[in-house]
């Protein structure tokens, strides 16, 4: 061990000091929940983006993932269940230079908030949306949700869910998102790369991170430890950037296809269009 490394180990300082709000730690996440490492790489991606921290705003809805915004030392907004995206649009269009990042869960973004997601993608709102998909409602105790796959056990699916889950990347792509990627929380390096690319993008960029939730998903589905979920991801994951998003649905026995599925350049954003509209309407003056 070098002197520098030794010093770092013994120091009470943390490389991410200053990025987390003082007095907000310890966080509420369960042991072996992946939200800690996802928060970590999100901060790294924001920090390395070179964007003026004043121009960063983070918005969450309600749920476990929804708590992330409140830990981050940026302008941060913890809104109501399902409503992070239109709040983010209000923040985004009032300052064209502002980078607004939404980070929330699958139930928040795709059940109660599903309508906002599809319309924001359609409008190409200039926001980055990160969904941590843990296949269930964690904070309320493990109920089935819009990403729960058929045969999965949850408190409101005691005999196993019968429903088809959303294929989220396909939903995002078909509604017009300019960037769509999916990785598992096991692969934090790729998750971070995806965050960086999504943040650098103009327009509606979307990253789905498959998260580990041992407490309310795992223990009802023979995956009661965080490690088991990550092993499950490792076993089932297939990397395929060229996959057709129609083929990336997740079910009980299918492989989990991950990759960067969509990356479109130069599509005018909602903000671009609103600014153009201002110019057109003002040109008629006098």
């Amino acid at each position, binding site marked *: 061990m070098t002197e520098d490394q030794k010093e770092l180990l013994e120091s009470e300082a943390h490389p991410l000091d200053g990025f987390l*709000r003082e*007095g*907000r730690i310890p966080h509420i996440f369960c042991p072996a929940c992946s939200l800690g490492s996802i928060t970590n790489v999100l901060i790294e991606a924001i920090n390395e983006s070179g964007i003026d921290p*004043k*121009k960063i*705003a983070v*918005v969450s809805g309600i749920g476990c993932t929804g708590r992330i915004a*409140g830990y981050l*030392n*940026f*302008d*941060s*907004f*913890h*809104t*109501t269940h399902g*409503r992070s*995206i*239109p*709040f*983010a*649009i*209000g*923040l*985004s*269009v*009032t*300052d064209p230079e*502002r980078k607004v990042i939404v980070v929330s869960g699958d139930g928040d973004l795709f059940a109660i908030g599903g*309508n*906002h997601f599809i*319309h924001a993608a359609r409008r190409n709102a200039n926001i980055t949306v990160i969904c941590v998909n843990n296949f269930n409602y964690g904070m309320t105790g493990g109920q089935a949700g819009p990403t729960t796959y058929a045969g999965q056990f949850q408190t409101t699916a005691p005999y196993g869910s019968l429903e088809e889950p959303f294929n989220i990347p396909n939903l995002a792509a078909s509604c017009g998102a300019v960037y769509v990627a999916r990785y598992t929380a096991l692969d934090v390096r790729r998750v971070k790369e995806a965050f960086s690319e999504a943040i650098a993008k103009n327009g509606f960029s979307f990253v789905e991170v498959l998260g580990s939730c041992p407490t309310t998903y795992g223990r009802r589905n023979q995956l009661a430890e965080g490690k088991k979920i990550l092993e499950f991801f490792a076993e089932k994951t297939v990397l395929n950037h060229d996959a057709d998003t129609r083929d990336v649905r997740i079910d009980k026995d299918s492989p989990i296809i991950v990759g960067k599925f969509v990356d479109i350049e130069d599509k005018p954003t*909602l903000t671009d269009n*609103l600014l153009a*509209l*201002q110019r*057109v*309407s*003002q040109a008629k*003056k*006098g």
Partner: protein
Amino acid sequence: MSKQKQKFLEVSTGEHFTTGNHAAAEGALAVGCKFFGGYPITPSSEIAEHMALRLPQLGGNFVQFEDEIASIIGILGASWGGVKSMTATSGPGYSLMVENIGLGMMTETPCVIINVQRGGPSTGLPTLVGQQDIMQTKWGSHGDFEPIVLCPSSVQECFELAIEAFNYAEKYRLPVTLLLDETLGHMSERLIIPDASKIGKVERKKPKDSPEEHLPYKADDDLIPPMAVAGEGYKVMVTGLTHDERGYPNLNVETQDKLVRRINDKIRLNKKDIIRVEEYKLDDAEIAIIAFGSVARAAKGSVNRARKNGIKVGLLRLITIWPFPDERIEALAEQVKKIYVPEINYGQITREVERSVHGKTEVKGIFKLGGAIHNPQEILKEIEGDA
């Protein structure tokens, strides 16, 4: 200056013949509204249409959202983005908004909601008048808060109270509702818009301390915290959870008590500043009518006719609906032997009046269930029938 050029000013100074809906939209623009988020609904759609036309000309933004829920939360976001923001709707849309009006109350976010009332419940009478959202604007969202709700009764007042709605929103940091009704929203009459220099504008209080020292929910002596917004370096922390002065979630009895008392008391202790009424021929009145909105216009006619017939009737017109002018009404109860309350619902303000008079006089509601305003003769008949 040509009329063509005037169209592109925030304040459309001059004399107009226009509707309550357009007047309210012009009032919002005159006081500096720069963001409108909305969803079409009768009878309020003309407000959205007018904002879609005018806002881009003034460097503002109009977004037609996917529903009323997105509209209200979008204007909360825009307010935290640092601009004055507004939405407009009618009863069913207001019903969808109430959860996030609560978020606005809890996070102390200035913004304005115009509700052009139609007959309900449910889809009810989309194209016809109602006054059935009185209690919804007070109790619609869960939890304890004190809303400010203003109720014009002329096209001129739609303009003026739209300005006041923004001013109260900015001063007291909360969503303020401007309560029109279908009759008022769609009727045309004269509107005089004064010179821009005559428009009184209130802006939200800004922090004077540094971002390092700043506590976003630490109120001054007036119980209102200065408001830093996104992008100013204050790293604002905003949550609908019960929060302390730092804005941090703090879920305990003490924090809840302190916060909820303060967001209520900042309005309760300033009732004198907020409550407005118009008194018409009340000085020697033996009988009073309490009315608001378009019905108050008919009630004025009833007062004049009654006086011609030798009955001393006066009108107390409510301009501020919430907080309720209960002290003024109690004083009135000591003067008159009976109070009539005509309203287009099955008894909403009537109950508040009954509560306010503390048994000191008789209160009688005159209810129409929606679809038309009262005829002055109808109210008069009621009064004469009892006399």
